[in-house]
């Protein structure tokens, strides 16, 4: 388990004191894929680089499986780092070594014998599907292939934790998808904990179990993917979600509805089983309101159906209120849109 307490990073720059991370607390369970998202400058890169002490914290503790990294001697820190794999946006492979040499590199550092190194590296290269590229140099590979080498290399010393620093940010959508699939698969096969940072909500939606939203060095919102997607609290979170799931109505339609049809505009979100049940017809039958569907969308977040409807409810005010209460009692998330 990873437990971060009161983590702070301040440094001095030309513009004065920069507070990159401010007293951050975080817990990540074993085997979890935990995502951190934030706009650039939010401190996510600083944060992930502190998790293996590439960046030294100003204060706070970083506890990984019972060991506080910040208290280790440099020698013990090097040993601990061998159990924390890391992958990078720009891959950072050694240009002077082949794929095989790159994957064997961490084993060489750990002092593993030559024969064992070769064997282990070959297994990992097979795991990431690059058998036919083992003797190629990084310059001869595509971005997606380079990141696969990066992943194989990060797994060489059987780490407990994998850190991913914007690993898909310089890849095309196709490679991003396959790299994310690979990460999900190795998590399942090796029961690895993965902490990743990204500025793309699609990455979070595709593979994370939980997510933290970072703004100005602080976690402003944190929760399971379904919770965050169905009940985002903060404006920044909503903005990130809207980049992958669009549930804003075109302004013209809102204006038209507002002017012509005085009623109540609501947004209902359904998660999982709820998407199967006929709530809207219940509403119309039992509460004598009219429901005009202005917008509907159904998506899937890691196999869980997730839907959104924007309804224009018409009828007597008390009926509308009752029908909203009914929807809420069914554990649906209902939001009254005052000023869309």
């Amino acid at each position: 388990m990873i437990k971060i307490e009161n983590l702070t990073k301040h440094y001095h720059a030309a513009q004065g004191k920069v507070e990159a991370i401010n007293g951050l607390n975080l817990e990540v369970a074993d085997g979890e894929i935990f995502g951190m998202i934030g706009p650039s400058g939010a401190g996510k890169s600083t944060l992930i680089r502190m998790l293996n002490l590439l960046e030294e914290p100003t204060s706070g503790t970083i506890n990984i499986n019972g060991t506080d990294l910040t208290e280790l001697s440099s020698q013990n820190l090097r040993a601990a780092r061998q159990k924390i794999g890391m992958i990078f946006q720009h891959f950072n492979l050694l240009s002077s070594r082949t794929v095989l040499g790159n994957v064997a590199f961490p084993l060489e550092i750990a002092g593993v014998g030559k024969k064992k190194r070769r064997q282990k590296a070959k297994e990992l290269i097979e795991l990431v599907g690059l058998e036919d590229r083992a003797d190629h140099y990084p310059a001869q590979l595509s971005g997606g292939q380079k990141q696969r080498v990066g992943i194989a290399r990060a797994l060489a010393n059987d780490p407990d934790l994998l850190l991913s620093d914007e690993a898909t940010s310089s890849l095309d959508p196709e490679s991003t998808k396959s790299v994310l699939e690979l990460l999900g698969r190795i998590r399942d096969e090796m029961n690895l904990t993965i902490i990743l940072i990204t500025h793309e909500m699609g990455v979070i939606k595709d593979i994370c179990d939980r997510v933290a939203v970072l703004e100005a060095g602080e976690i402003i919102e944190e929760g399971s993917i379904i919770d965050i997607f169905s009940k985002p609290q903060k404006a920044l979170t909503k903005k990130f979600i809207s980049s992958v799931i669009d549930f804003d109505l075109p302004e013209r339609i809102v204006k038209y509805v507002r002017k012509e049809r005085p009623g109540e505009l609501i947004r209902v979100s359904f998660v999982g089983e709820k998407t199967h049940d006929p709530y809207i017809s219940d509403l119309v039958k039992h509460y004598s309101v009219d429901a005009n569907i202005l917008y509907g969308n159904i998506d899937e977040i890691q196999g869980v159906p997730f839907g959104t409807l924007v309804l224009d409810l018409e009828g007597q005010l008390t009926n509308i209120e009752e029908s909203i209460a009914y929807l809420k009692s069914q554990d649906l998330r209902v939001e009254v849109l005052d000023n869309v």
Partner: protein
Amino acid sequence: MFNFITDLARYNDLMISGSLETLYMVAMSLFFAIVGGIPLGILTTITRQGHILPNKPLNFILDGIINIGRSIPFIILMVAVIPFTRMIVGTSIGTNAAVVPLSLAAIPFMGRVTDNAILEIDQGVVESAQSMGASPLQIVFKVLLPESLPAIILGLTLTAISLVSYSAMAGAVGGGGLGDIAIRYGYQRFQLAIMLETIVILVVMVQLIQFFGNQIASFFDHRA
């Protein structure tokens, strides 16, 4: 014209021994440039702010040594270190004596070349090695040197070519080699053929050094 041809034939042995002396001086001082300059360059880079072993005072000293060494014109350096040369070689005349100032000029030159070659390596690559738990020594020998090898070889080529020209200067003050021949026969005795021949040999030498340097560097270069 007759003179021209007979001169060339007559001094054949002289030209061969002169060329060998030049090659000897270049090879010896190149050797000292490698064993002295490359470690100097590595230490200078890694003690820089933000590199793997930052050390401000040491970096200041090493960087200073390189700058001072590089700013003294070779002809002055050669004369200035004569007492030191005598102390080491026992004399200030001859090819062995010339190797001393040549090495002293080549070491800081190679130091700067190595420093620049290592600085070219993407800091992310160094960081990835650190993230795997590599020690500073492992980073030097498994990352910095192999990754900068093509650039270091090109730097060595550059150093060797500078040494060819410096060695000619050393020849003028009793160092021997092609420079000595060009001055004594070509300039002082007006033997134009000898002068031209030394120039041709030097040009060919430099071309060959550059050619092989490029070949070896590209053999180790897998960046593209």
